């Protein structure tokens, strides 16, 4: 019960995402504070962080189906029901975004779509309906659709981050001085850090790198080269 009292009060206050112009604590200082955690707590936190903020390079070689299988295996290691719910919520939002993007680029066969969470079957069933039959149960979908139709990916990303931020902050305020509060703080810190280092040039580099890997994997590069010859 008392394990997190010192640690939680040793963490600084994170302002609201839109007001966050600089991080109140560096990753080095945060990691130094997190050394107060037990080995088991550290392992749990690392797993939750990896699930919530996956490193793209680790997953770029996986297909959607393999990615979901890997995600489910990692989820089984999370012990906190509160954190499981939050990670599920994040994955459901990602699934919605992925479905909207797949449909936008012309995927006509819903059975080819892979996702996670409560809504996957509904999404497949109502693939050709504008709101996947989820308009009433998922108010975020309408907003995501609206922003995607404007073709402003930055606004979509901001809305997605804001939704995650709100859910994490609510959970943090409901579980004072607990592992859940700590994990929510660390995840919010990571969202703030990611938003603050948005960089157009780096995004283009990452895109080019991802594109090269995918082209290499699919064999398209060789076909293009042969075609040129």
């Amino acid at each position, binding site marked *: 019960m008392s394990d997190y009292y010192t640690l939680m*009060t040793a963490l600084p206050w994170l302002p609201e995402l839109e007001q966050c112009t600089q991080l109140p604590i560096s990753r080095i200082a945060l990691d130094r504070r997190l050394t107060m955690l037990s080995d088991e707590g550290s392992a749990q936190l690392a797993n939750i962080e990896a699930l919530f903020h996956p490193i793209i390079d680790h997953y770029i070689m996986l297909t959607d189906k393999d990615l979901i299988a890997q995600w489910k295996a990692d989820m089984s290691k999370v012990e906190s029901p509160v954190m499981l719910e939050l990670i599920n919520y994040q994955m459901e939002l990602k699934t919605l975004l992925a479905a909207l993007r797949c449909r936008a680029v012309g995927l006509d066969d819903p059975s080819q779509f892979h996702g996670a969470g409560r809504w996957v079957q509904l999404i497949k069933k109502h693939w050709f309906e504008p709101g996947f039959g989820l308009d009433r149960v998922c108010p975020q979908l309408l907003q995501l659709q609206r922003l995607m139709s404007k073709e402003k990916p930055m606004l979509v990303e901001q809305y997605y981050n804001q939704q995650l931020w709100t859910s994490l902050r609510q959970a943090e305020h409901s579980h004072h*001085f607990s592992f859940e509060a700590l994990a929510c703080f660390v995840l919010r810190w990571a969202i703030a850090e990611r938003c603050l280092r948005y960089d157009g040039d780096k995004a283009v580099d990452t895109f080019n790198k991802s594109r090269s890997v995918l082209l290499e994997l699919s064999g398209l590069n060789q076909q293009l080269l042969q075609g040129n010859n």
Partner: protein
Amino acid sequence: MDNLIIALGWAGLYGPMALGAIGSMIGCALAGQAACGALLETETGHGRYIGIAAMPSSQSIYGIVVMFALNREITVDNAPGLAAIGLLCGLALLFSAAWQGRCCASAINVAKIRPEIFGMSLAPAAIVEGFAVFAFIFALVISAGVPA
């Protein structure tokens, strides 16, 4: 049977002190841990964090006073009364101290972020202290009715 009743009388006599002290230990430990964390994060105002962390210790003092108020020769006639007053008062002191510790930890956490609300943040801890005072005062009042 008489021995059991006498033993309960002794438990009632020492109960407010022991249970109050257990509550104070829990409360001061929780608030103290929060104060230690706040020391890491702040440059000034350290003294007041440690001061807040000591708030739940008052329940031990109330327990000592109630113990002295109940102190008398324990007989089969007065032992049940002593047990009822002492143990119930002790439980009230224990829970109030433990939960006051949590209130103090929260007060330290928010006062660290916004020092200007330091006084207001102590209100919940003060309210919990009020209930401990009720238990303490009325234990003293009722103890006068227990046969000497």
